[in-house]
């Protein structure tokens, strides 16, 4: 029997977050701390220390059936041969994950298995991520999974050990914030543009201490891929997690995936999932609303994801900043980025393009980039790094790889690659990269590298024109 999510509550309308939280309480302490049960736990090749700590303490993995691993951060994306990893420390991470999985009984999608990929792409793709669950991973972009209507958040390495040992975590209940996108999004506007517009509004720390629920007609129209992109960058707005209520789009996406329920279990799950959306009249600690039709293709110009502007804008002038701290911050960011105030964003030349990462490496992202690349030529080095082996295969079955290759793009294997550069795939100092990843921090894509965050369509447009271009004109053409 599926229990109503709010069955333990007798006190009126609840948010989706509240319903999922309550359902996972193991122990509530009087001091406000909760031991929260973790339904599913994702691991990657950066989880080395967490396993090492567990072993050193002589502890076992409590629920290996609830943990799933895949190497993504340290694996190069130009080879599938682990022995080809040059740096011994990197190789230790990738090889170590397989050894740890084998020793503990944790399921692994290893290199050579087409299910391998970026952990936040693999979870939803395999049906491991499901509505109503709690899911954690030792990676800040775990917020991605909330797109399917679950509570998913990133944790540190010690907390990974804790989850391995106890399948639970001590948490203080975050606050809830609703971000409403009111009205339909314009032509060519993607989940990436929406989240960059949100972060520009609330600031990089705007969601700190909150779980963000996205709602409104502008959200409902998004595909699951678009929703995953949106929730992925919740952390860039400071959010503990991001979530979107499940609907028919969600159920269609989940149905038939390997780890999703089937048959009668599916019916029981559906009955529960339909109780998850926030009740009418549920109150949020904070509400923010953006107008959907007003969101334009976004480009970041600085060194924080909050430094984002429509492609039709110009680089801001620090002299006009609200206060001295902001003025200094903007000036420092523009100095690093090598940009002058007042320069139209569409006139900024780009040196390199990276299409990939847990933010934007899914099939829809590749389709949109291919639509722009088709029949055109990349003017600058441009990489496509699919989010998983399965996405790579699907793209090849659809002929997308050929479109990219014909346009001079490099077609690579699945992994985090140049989003974080841990595997050594980085840009050159001073290089300006149009990137579909999630962080434009100083040095994120290599020392001295200047990162501009954009959608896959905008990245492809930059690739074929050599500068930022309002992709809406190219999609219409």
């Amino acid at each position, binding site marked *: 029997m599926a229990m109503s999510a709010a069955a333990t509550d007798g006190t009126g309308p609840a948010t989706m977050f509240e319903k999922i939280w309550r359902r996972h309480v193991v122990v509530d302490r009087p001091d406000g701390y909760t031991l929260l049960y973790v339904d599913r736990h994702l691991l990657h090749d950066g989880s080395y220390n967490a396993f090492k700590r567990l072993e050193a*303490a002589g502890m076992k993995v409590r629920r290996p059936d609830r943990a799933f691993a895949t190497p993504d951060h340290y694996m190069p994306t130009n080879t599938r041969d682990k022995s080809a990893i040059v740096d011994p420390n990197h190789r*230790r991470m990738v090889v170590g994950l397989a050894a740890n999985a084998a020793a503990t009984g944790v399921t692994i999608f290893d290199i050579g298995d087409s299910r391998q990929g970026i952990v936040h792409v693999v979870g939803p793709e395999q049906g491991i991520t499901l509505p109503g669950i709690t899911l954690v991973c030792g990676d800040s972009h775990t917020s991605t999974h909330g797109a399917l209507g679950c509570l998913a958040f*990133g944790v540190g390495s010690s*907390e990974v050990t804790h989850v391995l040992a106890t399948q639970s975590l001590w948490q203080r209940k975050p606050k809830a914030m609703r971000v409403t996108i009111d009205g339909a999004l314009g032509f060519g506007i993607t989940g990436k543009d929406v989240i960059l517009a949100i972060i520009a509004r609330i600031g990089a720390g705007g969601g700190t201490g909150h779980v963000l629920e996205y709602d409104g007609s502008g959200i409902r129209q998004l595909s699951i891929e678009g929703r995953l992109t949106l929730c992925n960058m919740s952390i860039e707005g400071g959010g503990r997690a991001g979530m979107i209520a499940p609907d028919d789009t969600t159920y269609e996406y989940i149905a038939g995936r390997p780890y*999703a329920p089937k048959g009668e279990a599916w019916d029981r799950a559906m009955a*529960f999932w339909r109780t998850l959306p926030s009740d009418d009249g549920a109150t949020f600690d904070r509400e923010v609303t953006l107008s959907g039709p007003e969101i334009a293709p976004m480009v970041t110009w600085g060194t924080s994801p909050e430094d984002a502007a429509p492609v039709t804008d110009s680089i801001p002038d620090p002299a006009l900043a609200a206060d001295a701290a902001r003025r200094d911050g903007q000036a420092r960011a523009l100095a690093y980025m090598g940009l002058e105030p007042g320069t139209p964003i569409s006139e900024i030349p780009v040196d390199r393009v990276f299409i990939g990462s847990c933010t934007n490496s899914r099939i829809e992202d590749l389709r949109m980039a291919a639509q722009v690349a088709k029949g055109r030529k990349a003017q600058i080095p441009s990489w496509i790094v699919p989010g998983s082996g399965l996405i790579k295969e699907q793209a090849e079955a659809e002929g997308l790889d050929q479109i990219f290759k014909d346009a001079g793009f490099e077609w690579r294997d699945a992994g985090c690659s140049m989003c*974080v550069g841990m595997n050594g795939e980085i840009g050159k100092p001073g290089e300006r990269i149009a990137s579909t990843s999630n962080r434009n921090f100083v040095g994120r894509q290599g020392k001295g590298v200047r990162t501009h965050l954009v959608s896959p369509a905008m990245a492809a447009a930059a690739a074929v024109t050599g500068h930022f271009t309002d992709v809406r004109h190219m999609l219409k053409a």
Partner: protein
Amino acid sequence: MSGSETTKLIPFDRLTATAVAIDRPNVDTDQIIPARYLALPREEQVSHLFHDLRYRDDGAPREGFPLNEPTAAGAQILIAERNFACGSSREHAVTVLVDNGFRVFIAPSFGDIFNNNCFQNGALPIRLPEERIREMLDHLARRPDARITVDLDAQTVTGPDNWTQSFEIDSFRKQCLLTGSDDISLTLRHEPDIAAYERRAEAHADWL
């Protein structure tokens, strides 16, 4: 279950030390320790704290970066601006700070994951109002050798002119820091609760 006696953390109660100020908002954990050092053994990460802000391309210390000032030697308190240590969940951001002697971080706000990671490593993140941080930074600019006292039990930060500011902390986290107990040993005492939860939950959601 074996291993319930896990590593004890060094208890934290009271600290009097000098402080270093990182005077800019949104300092992300990529700045605290760049990704290229994360695969190194912990002991080799120590020298890479704030690496790219701290050192020039030729490896020489960058003049003007607070950690390169002579007064930074021995500092155990770091004062920062809003949204300190946002971004990546890398726990190395805490451990590299701890291994460089820092036990207390004071800022108007922290990245949530960094905040949690601090408590896993015996470090204390303190949130103070922006105006108070501004005053502390101004004071520190005039007197970089000023000693600050952090008293966890009393929940106060006291400056050299005897100004005192109280701070909030979850009593759960406070007790863990004061006793140096780690989460896992506490949780293992709740093993029967976890097992009972699992029986309950699996009856309701048998598809997981």
